[in-house]
């Protein structure tokens, strides 16, 4: 049955994706939930949560708040917290509860801005989509709201969009910086909202996951910044492993898949998430993997997927994917 998972756990939801992009920005984040969604984010999808404090809160909604649509109460709570915490802006992240009661996010955003005197963004995630959808919305809204056109490009500075623990399976951007030989700002990963304001200082942008593409297109169309799509953070030793000639299927986020092919790896690509390549196989459920697995001699992907194909006779090479399984590249992450 479509949407029935019998072997693996659900992937990171859009709520987690939005929170992942917002986590280091310095904004006050309110997950518009009763507690469980924020708990999923903090207790599972946000590896920075244990080592790096962030003002990420649950709205603490109760049934009558939802039934009566008490937006004023939420704005009041938000305003009090803003007075206590002094954030640079606020962000309200949607969950199934506001989706069911059809919360008017535009109105909520305006009310929050009026009450707090701070910029506010409302991200209409609903918990039914995957993390890439939430990341895409958050990146786009942050750039749209905060980009300032007073900055001029700085030579050799690039901006990385799409670097989050969910996409990279790493909890710190320093593990990515070592692959680059130039000044780079990783938006939302080791940088705060000030870098969004200064995005026009970047000579060009590098989109490292599909969730960053919409924001990059927006910046290109409105401010003329060029962008490339690539994932330059692949260990050469890993590429070596894949060079052995075998019919291969790789399952991951699509920019990483594209990067493998760009580096000469012969593989078919598949993903459960957004795509940037036209020929990537779009997986919808567990059965999709089971149906195509036997066409390959080797599968590269998060090891948790192996449960779906227990009888697969070929090689399975583990490529951890936090957004899919919650597994990081390094044990200590």
């Amino acid at each position, binding site marked *: 049955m479509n949407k029935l998972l019998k072997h693996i*756990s659900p992937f990171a939801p859009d709520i987690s994706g939005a929170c992942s992009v917002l986590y280091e920005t310095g904004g006050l984040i309110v997950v518009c939930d009763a*507690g469980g969604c924020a708990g999923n984010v903090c207790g599972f999808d946000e590896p920075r949560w244990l080592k790096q404090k962030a*003002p990420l809160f649950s*709205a603490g909604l*109760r*049934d009558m708040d939802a039934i009566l649509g008490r937006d004023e109460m939420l704005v009041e709570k938000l305003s009090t917290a803003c007075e206590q915490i002094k954030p640079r802006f606020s962000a309200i992240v949607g969950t*199934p509860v506001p989706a*069911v009661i059809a919360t008017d996010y535009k109105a909520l955003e305006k009310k929050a801005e009026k009450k707090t005197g701070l910029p506010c963004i409302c991200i209409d995630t609903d918990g039914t989509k995957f993390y890439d959808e939430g990341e895409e919305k958050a990146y786009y809204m942050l750039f749209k709201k905060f980009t300032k056109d007073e900055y001029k490009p700085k030579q050799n500075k690039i901006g990385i969009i799409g670097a989050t623990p969910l996409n990279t399976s790493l909890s710190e951007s320093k593990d990515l910086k070592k692959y680059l030989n130039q000044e780079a700002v990783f938006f939302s990963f080791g940088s705060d909202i000030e870098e969004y304001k200064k995005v026009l200082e970047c000579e060009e942008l590098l989109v490292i996951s599909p969730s960053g593409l919409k924001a990059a297109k927006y910046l290109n169309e409105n401010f003329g910044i060029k962008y490339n799509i690539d994932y330059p953070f692949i260990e050469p030793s890993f590429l070596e492993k894949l060079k052995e000639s075998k019919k291969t299927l790789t399952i991951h986020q699509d920019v990483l898949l594209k990067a493998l092919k760009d580096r000469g790896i012969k593989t078919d690509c598949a993903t459960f998430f957004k795509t940037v390549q036209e020929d990537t196989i779009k997986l919808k459920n567990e059965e999709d993997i089971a149906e195509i697995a036997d066409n390959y001699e080797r599968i590269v992907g998060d090891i948790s997927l192996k*449960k779906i194909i227990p009888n697969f006779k070929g090689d399975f090479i583990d490529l951890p994917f936090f957004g899919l399984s919650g597994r990081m590249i390094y044990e200590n992450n």
Partner: protein
Amino acid sequence: MSSTYFITAEELAKNIEDKKPLPQELLSSKHLIYSSPATLSFNSPGAKGFGVKRAALAIPGSVMLLVAPTCCGRNTALLNEIGYSERIFYLLLDDTDIVTGRHLNKIASAALEIKEELNYTPSALMICITCVDALLGTDMERVCKKCFEKTNIPTVPAYMYALTREKKLPPMAAVRKSLYSLLKPRKRISTVCNLLGFFSPLYDECEIYPLLKSIGITRIGELSRCKTYEEYETLSEANFNLVLNREARFSAQYLEQTLGIPYIELTRVYSPQKIHNQYTLLGKALGSDIDDSKYLEKTLKKIEEFKSKHRSLTFAVGEWLNADGFELSLTLLEMGFKVSEIYATVGDGNEKLISHIAKISPKTRIYSNLSPTMLMYEPSKETDIALGADAAYYHKGKSLEFNSETQPFGYQGLNMLLDGIDEVLK
């Protein structure tokens, strides 16, 4: 930045005495809820310990179908690490489902597909639903009936309704009722009783077992000790239930109504005198004398030894531990120690404890773990040891989490606590 909110025991006791409303910072419904690592177990119990999902699988041989958007099942991957991966299945809802409720028509077919997937027949199927169905007003009894008709597997709802957790029947109370709802009437046996309240057993060393045996009880049932469904079914043979955690009160009432099993409530306390009083009252209620003098004397001796060894200690006490933070704080104060900070939820009948604490230690600071201002919290330097996983998170020095899954109770609990503190201070 403003400082972290706290109130002294003295101020809070005065507030309670004057019958003034509690300060808003102490009321979780009046402010945003800080999801720090210190609050996880009670702000989102699904993420740690026993939330609805794990608790609902307490019936031996049962499996679960979680019917929810992706976001509700994500952290269930943590349960895979502790052996639940073969027992939990997911029917994911899309954006149309959560508005129209069309997913309700798929649940029975999904249940059948799960049955066909397994190479055994589960003893029960728990259908776990979430806030979405709470708002849609889903009739789960009907859904479960349809599942049973299609699969012939007893099917029970588990309501993971976070929206209702401050209601009379919060999710963790409702799930206990679900767990006992498959029990069928049996002939009750006068020498059998059950312990209700926890999803893990008490420590084997707990004195409650020999004390109950001393008054003629031959079998003590605990759901968490049932290895098979047949064993689970024998829980309905009990002559009475002992409720050790008030979240189990509703299920005890349910068992009284459906199976005619009466219940008696005990509370987990750490004051030796209160433990003794409870056993005395329990004996009276059962028409027998419970002689706990051996355990009481041993415990009092241990307290004296502990006090002479650790003459002056200052504690920070949290609420993510196997105790009521206020009761434990009061016990420590009555032993002559100091309590500098308490992280706890005010309410639930702990007002009297706060008044007592205020009399002994008026300057003890009381914090709300859930307050957004805890983001700026800096622990005091006067504390020698932190008790509870939340207090241990704040205080990076010596700490005892004291939140094991196996449950401490009575004199055994107090002795274990003192041993634990002693070990940490070595």
